[in-house]
């Protein structure tokens, strides 16, 4: 029997059993749609999160006191970690040339008040470079002044939402005086809202000069040193150099450098695992579809016993009968795969037109996997019925 004739015969048999074929197609295509669409959603979520991180600015390094690997594991052994000081930040700026900006950050939670209106928020002591490094923008007024890091000044830049809460009804904040704790400071600028970035609500915070903050909080150590590395430089080498400089000053590694890449990278890994989990769940529906195919094919074999008997009488061998039924299973599952894929692609396009920011385009590997798996499932679950058909006793089959 020629291959083309086998496929033609199988196709003809399928087309003459519309209902059965249709139900099989439905099952397989739902399974494939689920796999492709869910992996598309998972990948979309991964890209979305990645893009959110990108919006923070690339190549940021956070340095914070305490070593992530030893801290907590062996308390007391190395003693309390040394503070990260303004001098450390200064040394980095001076000795590591590849750094674009070094931004010291001191953090405290303070009550900011305009007469009787007050709000407890994070007040960051930092430098004017903070705003740019974090991708923030001013909506009115000016940035923090360029000062010597050791000098304070009674000024504040307010987050957009904080400004609206303290100065409601269109009252202009810039130029007014607010209280931060028990100090009176002048509002010199207001930031645009940029939503929450890594746990910090940028709308509800205030920025003051770093020296003012350290004296206000009575702290000699910094909360973070935020470093922005030039876009063209090798992050790993630069971080290693920064580590060297700080080790020399502290005598031990009592600090941690965390690159934004690694944060984004681990999140990306998590999201990919989630995607795979979604694909796994969706595969269950493919397997269910496969079992459906098997059932339908088994019914088909028993209904066509007399046909099988006839084919055998006309000279078809075991292998040919088996090949015909396998071809039917393969055709159904491949067609179901293509239909399911088309549905998934249309659905992801529709989704994109409603939520342009969320790109749920299925990844190429899920498309290949779905088609491969659906065809595999069809063949796998087609083997049993095909074997059954080929093993029918022709005499008995002809009598039915």
């Amino acid at each position, binding site marked *: 029997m020629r291959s083309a*004739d086998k496929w033609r015969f199988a196709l*003809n048999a399928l087309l003459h059993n519309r209902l059965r074929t249709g139900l099989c197609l439905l099952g397989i295509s739902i399974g494939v749609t689920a796999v492709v669409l869910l992996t598309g959603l998972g990948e979309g979520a991964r890209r979305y999160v990645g893009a959110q991180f990108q919006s923070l600015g690339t190549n940021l390094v956070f340095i914070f006191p305490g070593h992530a690997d030893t801290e907590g594991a062996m308390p007391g052994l190395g003693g309390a970690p040394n503070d990260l000081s303004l001098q450390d930040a200064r040394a980095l700026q001076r000795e590591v040339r590849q750094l674009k900006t070094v931004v010291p950050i001191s953090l405290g939670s303070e009550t900011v008040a305009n007469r009787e209106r007050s709000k407890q928020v994070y007040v960051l002591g930092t430098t004017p470079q903070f705003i740019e490094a974090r991708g923030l923008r001013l909506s009115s007024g000016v940035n923090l002044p360029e000062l010597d890091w050791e000098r304070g000044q009674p000024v504040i830049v307010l987050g957009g939402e904080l400004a609206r809460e303290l100065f409601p009804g269109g009252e202009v904040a810039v130029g007014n005086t607010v209280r931060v704790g028990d100090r009176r400071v002048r509002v010199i600028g207001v930031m645009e809202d940029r939503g929450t970035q890594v746990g910090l609500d940028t709308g509800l915070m205030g920025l003051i000069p770093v020296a003012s903050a350290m004296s206000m909080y009575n702290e000699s150590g910094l909360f973070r040193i935020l470093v922005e590395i030039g876009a063209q430089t090798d992050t790993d080498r630069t971080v290693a150099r920064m580590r060297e400089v700080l080790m020399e000053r502290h005598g031990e590694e009592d600090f941690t450098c965390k690159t934004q890449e690694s944060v984004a990278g681990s999140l990306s890994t998590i999201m990919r695992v989630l995607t795979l989990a979604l694909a796994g769940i969706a595969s269950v529906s493919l397997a269910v579809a496969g079992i459906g195919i098997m059932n339908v094919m088994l019914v088909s074999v028993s209904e066509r016993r007399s046909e099988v008997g006839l084919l055998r*009488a006309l*000279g078809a061998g075991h292998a040919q009968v088996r090949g015909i039924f396998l071809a039917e299973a393969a055709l159904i599952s491949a067609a179901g795969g293509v239909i399911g894929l088309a549905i998934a692609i249309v659905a992801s396009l529709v989704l994109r037109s409603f939520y342009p920011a969320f790109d749920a385009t299925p990844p190429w590997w899920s498309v290949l996997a779905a088609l491969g798996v659906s065809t595999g499932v069809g063949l796998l679950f087609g083997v049993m019925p095909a074997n059954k058909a080929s093993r029918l006793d022709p005499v008995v089959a002809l009598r039915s």
Partner: protein
Amino acid sequence: MARVIELRGIRRTYKMGDQELHALADLDLDIESGEHVAIMGPSGSGKSTLLNVIGLLDRASSGRYALDGRDVTDLSDEELSEVRQNQIGFVFQSYHLVARLDAVANVELPMVFAGVPKKERRQRAEAALQRVGLGDRMHHKPTEMSGGQAQRVAVARSTIMGPSVLLADEPTGNLDSVSGNRVLDLLQGLHRDGLTLVVVTHDPAVARLADRVIVLKDGRLAREWRGTDVVSLDQLFELDAP
């Protein structure tokens, strides 16, 4: 004359629980090339079983079988399929056409399994349908044809590969006498052209056309007649009397 079929000590046993049922018991039978043999006998006497063994659809439990001088007793399943394909033609009482295929496609089927190219297949099938008088029914489905027409399609299909022997199991059993006679005319014509015919029948009128009539009883050869000697069913009923 060459011997087409040579059966020696053929036995076909079915196990029914712990009882053994001999559908065929120690049967010897020779059929010469070009012979027309009718098989008769009461229901359950083993006629269909014999035909299936001759057609290699069924295997004897013991005994030896030579077809066209070749011992086919121990062939593998694939080899048997090939022999069926090329040397055996079947016609069944209930036609056994594939309902979704039209007349031409049904006649083409044996050639499909033999790997004959599509164009040649089509030509040969159309010519065969012309010969059985169905040139105007080529593209009718079995459900759009009468029983007699369907059986003529089946006859065209059974001879399309040029078999050594044509086996027909009650070919007119489902037909009225007019369509039955047309089918018998066809078979007679094939026989005149030299084809070996083995026909199972209950109908003395059909048996009378044969060169030889063999009568089975309980899986054994009970009697042999010359076809022209078969006069009536009564002769067969005599057989049933102990």
